[in-house]
Each structure stands twice: as structure tokens, then as C-alpha cells.
């Protein structure tokens, strides 16, 4: 189901909306957000210089640090009294990022999430269970309002208490699950360990996953746990850009459709800031076209992706962003080699003998970086054989080496040993940082 006509406009129509809104938004920011005005002045750009979409490239970037420098309200374009809602980022990487919404922003946010929910397969009448942590995090209330808006019934079960989540899932007849992909996998494991068959005992049809990236391997595991018919899609957003609702997958699974009448996406070279041609991989930069309380122009997301503009088989014409292949700040530099945890994950997930859970520990011994990967055995069948265990370690090691070009120590752990996460999974421990080393 396609929620809005704006998802099927021609490229020309989309661009007409974008340029009109961009001009308005740049003027709004310049007038009302002193820190951004200072950046534009320093770059010698005035709102009237923005005539075509190409002129977007003249504008300075916004970055996470701007939020910290202007904490809490310095980037806002309206007085606090005009805000209807405040949210904040989790603050896992520093002071929380405070964001706010005018009543109009709330409407647009809800509209965008409604589209994402329908893209992912939700329909009016669905029973949606939201297992995101409520509170300051945008994910839970974002999906909550969007799903209510399309006419779904929402159960705000929030995070934690897995047994109770499963009880509600059974008793309410939940058809749509909203969660991080890691938590959904954990739920699936617990459901199976309780002897339930998700295909028979649950009515689950759709999974709308977000809060962290879902790799193809995780998606395959969703099918194993919840059945082949399960429609497992992911969606994209971050609190700086409202929250969820920037983009989402449709069942064609060929990238996430961007709500282009509200957001302009660009891909840049993260080192030079230069805009890259269509189809090239780089850092995703998003300009918000309708956000009034907290306008964000050319926000550097630190997420790595690429863009495609051909219309999709699903009927939507909006640009698609490829599923994330990492974050610029997730990237580890180990012995001079760039390593994304997602690369390790793809290797591990291709191996049926181990579970999708893993941990990477980076350390430094003398002058040399070391990498250890803890993986979890899928079951106990290999435990009595040194030969089988050693063969498995060696195979993982050589596959990791062929992908990363690095040696890693592989440590096999018992099934269920590695930590499960209800929110964003923390897979990497970099001990070099606690040693105060440059990395």
C-alpha cells in the first residue's frame, strides 16, 4: 500500500517541490539560527545564492558537534514555548543531542513515518507491538504516532521483559513487530526455546526494524526464526532528522525509499566533502526541507550508503538509499586497515555452525594492533571434537582474512554466552582507546 501521492511523483515534480522548499528553509535558517548563519557568512553564501538544487553544494555542512556546541537549544529556530515535543538521542557517543518539534513538525514526522510503515507492509487494522524503549528516544514514539495514523492498533510494550513481550504477542495477536533487529532475533530465539512455532502460534506478518542497521544475514536469520512469509524490512532515521521516517524499505528489498519531499539526500566523500556521482558509495548527507523547530541543512549522518534514482517495482519513484554498509565513526583502523564491523558480520553470518552474535575486541600488544573475534557456536554438536573446533576456527579466520586482509584470533563461545542487546548492539570493544592510544 502506497500511503501518499508524493511517493509516486515524476523526478521533475519532486525536484520542483525540493527547490521551492530548500529556498524557504535556507532563508528560515539564516534568519533564525545564529550558528548556521555564522557558517554561511564564513562561506560567503547568502540565501539568495540558492537558485537550483545544484546550489545546495554551496552550503556548509551541519555536524553532530554543532549540537554539543549549542546544547541544548542553540540550534533551534523557534522559542522553546513554540515546541510541542522534545526528544534526545541516546548520548552513547557524548552529551545527548536535544531535538524539538513544532506542531507542524509533528504532523510532518507522523506523515513520514506513516509512509514508512506502509512501505514495510503495515496496513490499517494491524496489531502493532512497539518494543523500542519509550522515553527520550525518537524511535518508539515516532513509530507509535505513524502506526496510529495509518489506522493500526498500537501496543506500546516498550523494551525489556522478553517473556511478557511474547505473552502479549500471542494474546493480542500481534501482526506488526517494531524493534531493533538484534532484539527481534533475540525474541525469535526465546520464542523457539519456549517450544513455540512462530508460524503457527503467532500471527506476526511484518517486522519494521530500525535503531541500528539490519544486515542481510540478520534478515536471513529472521526468516529462519519467524518463517519465510515474514516481511522483514528496515527503516532509517535519526533524532537530528526527526527520528524514524527519513527512508524505509519496501517488500522489493532494493534499498530504502527516501521521503524526498521532506529530505534531500546527497553522498559525499567523507574526507574531502565533495559530492559524489550517483551510485558511488560515501557518507550520506541529509537536508531537511520542512523541519521548522530545528532546521538541519546538509547534516552529515556519518552513515555510509549510496543512492539510486530509478523508479522501483513497487510503484514508488522516490530515490532509494542502499542499506547502510557501516558508519564512518564505526570504522576501525587496525594495523592501518579500514575495518567495518559489518564486514566481519557478513563473513560470520554465512556460516551455519555459528550464531549471528559476535564481539570484536581490538587491543595493542607492543606496537602491534590485535583483533580478537568472539563467536558463538550455533549448538553443542562440535564440542567433543578438537578437530572440528579447530577446523571451524581456522575457516572463520581465513575467511575474515580474505575479506579484511587481517589476521584475527577467533574465540569460540558457548551457545547463548555472548550478550544480547535490546537497543543498539555494542559489538566492538576498542581497548586501545582506554590506553589513550591513537587509533
Amino acid at each position, binding site marked *: 500500500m502506497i500511503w501518499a501521492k508524493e511517493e509516486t511523483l515524476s523526478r521533475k515534480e519532486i525536484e520542483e517541490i525540493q527547490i521551492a522548499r530548500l529556498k524557504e528553509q535556507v532563508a528560515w535558517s539564516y534568519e533564525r539560527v545564529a550558528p548556521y548563519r555564522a557558517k554561511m557568512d564564513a562561506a560567503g553564501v547568502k540565501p539568495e545564492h540558492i537558485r537550483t538544487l545544484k546550489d545546495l553544494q554551496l552550503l556548509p555542512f551541519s555536524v553532530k558537534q554543532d549540537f554539543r556546541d549549542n546544547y541544548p537549544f542553540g540550534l533551534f529556530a523557534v522559542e522553546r514555548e513554540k515546541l510541542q515535543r522534545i526528544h534526545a538521542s541516546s548520548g552513547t557517543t557524548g552529551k545527548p543531542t536535544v531535538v524539538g518539534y513544532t506542531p507542524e513538525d509533528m504532523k510532518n514526522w507522523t506523515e513520514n513515518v506513516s509512509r514508512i510503515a506502509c512501505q514495510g507492509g503495515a496496513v490499517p487494522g494491524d496489531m502493532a507491538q512497539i518494543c523500542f524503549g519509550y522515553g527520550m528516544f525518537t524511535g518508539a514514539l515516532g513509530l507509535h504516532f505513524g502506526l496510529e495514523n495509518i489506522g493500526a492498533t498500537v501496543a506500546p510494550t516498550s523494551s525489556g521483559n522478553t517473556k511478557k513481550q511474547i505473552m502479549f504477542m500471542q494474546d493480542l495477536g500481534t501482526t506488526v513487530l517494531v524493534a531493533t533487529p538484534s532484539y527481534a532475533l533475540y525474541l525469535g530465539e526465546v520464542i523457539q526455546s519456549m517450544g513455540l512455532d512462530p508460524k503457527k502460534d503467532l500471527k506476526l506478518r511484518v517486522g519494521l526494524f530500525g535503531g541500528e542497521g539490519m544486515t542481510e544475514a540478520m534478515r536471513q536469520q529472521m526468516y529462519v526464526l519467524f518463517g519465510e512469509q515474514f516481511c522483514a524490512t528496515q527503516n532509517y532515521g535519526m533524532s537530528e532528522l526527526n527520528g524514524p521516517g527519513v527512508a524505509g524499505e519496501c517488500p522489493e528489498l532494493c534499498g530504502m525509499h527516501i521521503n524526498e519531499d521532506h529530505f534531500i539526500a546527497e553522498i559525499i566523500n567523507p574526507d574531502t566533502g565533495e559530492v559524489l556521482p550517483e551510485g558511488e558509495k560515501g557518507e550520506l548527507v541529509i537536508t531537511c526541507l520542512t523541519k521548522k523547530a530545528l532546521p538541519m541543512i546538509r547534516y552529515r549522518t556519518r552513515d555510509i550508503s549510496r543512492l539510486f534514482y530509478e523508479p522501483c517495482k513497487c510503484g514508488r519513484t522516490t530515490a532509494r538509499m542502499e542499506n547502510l554498509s557501516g558508519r564512518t565513526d564505526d570504522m576501525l583502523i587496525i594495523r592501518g586497515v579500514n575495518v567495518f564491523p559489518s564486514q566481519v558480520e557478513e563473513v560470520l553470518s554465512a556460516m551455519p555452525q555459528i550464531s549471528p552474535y559476535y564481539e570484536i575486541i581490538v587491543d595493542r600488544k607492543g606496537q602491534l594492533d590485535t583483533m580478537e573475534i568472539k563467536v558463538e557456536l550455533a549448538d*553443542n554438536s562440535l564440542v567433543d571434537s578438537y578437530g572440528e573446533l579447530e577446523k571451524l576456527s581456522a575457516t572463520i579466520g581465513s575467511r575474515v582474512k580474505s575479506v579484511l586482509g587481517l589476521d584475527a584470533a577467533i574465540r569460540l563461545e558457548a551457545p547463548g*554466552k555472548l550478550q544480547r542487546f535490546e537497543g543498539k548492539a555494542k559489538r566492538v570493544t576498542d581497548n586501545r582507546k582506554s590506553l589513550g592510544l591513537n587509533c
Partner: protein
Amino acid sequence: MKQISVLVENHVGSLAAVTALLKEAHVNIKAIASFDSPSYGILRMVVDAPEQAALVLQESHFAVKITDVLTVEMEDQPGALDHVFAVMAEAGIDIYYVYSFVYRLDKAPLMVLNVSDNEKARQVLKGAGIQIVEE
């Protein structure tokens, strides 16, 4: 007879972590074997309550596997072990590993054997007059 195999890490205290759990569960260890390897070890044991031992260890996130092994009575005299191994060799059965019980009062040790074919081994050992202990 049932044997439990436990995956243990190569660091100080990892064996004690296993035995502490078994002690708490009042599980008695009757035979035990462990060998060194570069990264991890497999601790193999015959205990009086294998199912319970496996459960207790798995709850503490140890990887545990229960396998069938053969346990044979030994004559307390030179050549007894040679006799067992010769029977197996003649029957073309692989012995993967062997270890012995930790106490037998004044009797000769019981030997635990993990072999390529339990049923066949059982037959040939019996045929050669070697006593197999089932419980």
C-alpha cells in the same frame, strides 16, 4: 556410559569454574581428562548425574555435549591394556582417545574409550572376554 564434554577457555581458573558448579550441584566426578591446545580445551568427564551436570553448566553458558563412550574393566596385570587395544585394532575400530577413572579403591582402573564404532567395539570386547561397565 555417558560422558560430558565441556568447552573451556585457556586461562587461569577456567577448570575451577566448571568443578565449582558441579560441586554446588552435588555432582560426583568419576573420571576426568583434559589436554592442552593453543586456544581452548575440552574437559571430558564421567559423572554420576550427566544430564543434571550438563544442565547446570549450560545455565552458566558453558558449551556442553553428552556423548556415549565405552568403559571397560581392566585386569590388574601387565598386558591388560594391550589386550584391549589389540582387540580393537583387529576389528578395525578407531580409538579417538582414552582416559581412566580417578578412583577404584583397591581394584584396577576402569578405562574410558571413545571409539569410531561403539556397537562393534562392545561386541568384539565382549567376545575377547573384556568386561564393559554400563553404569
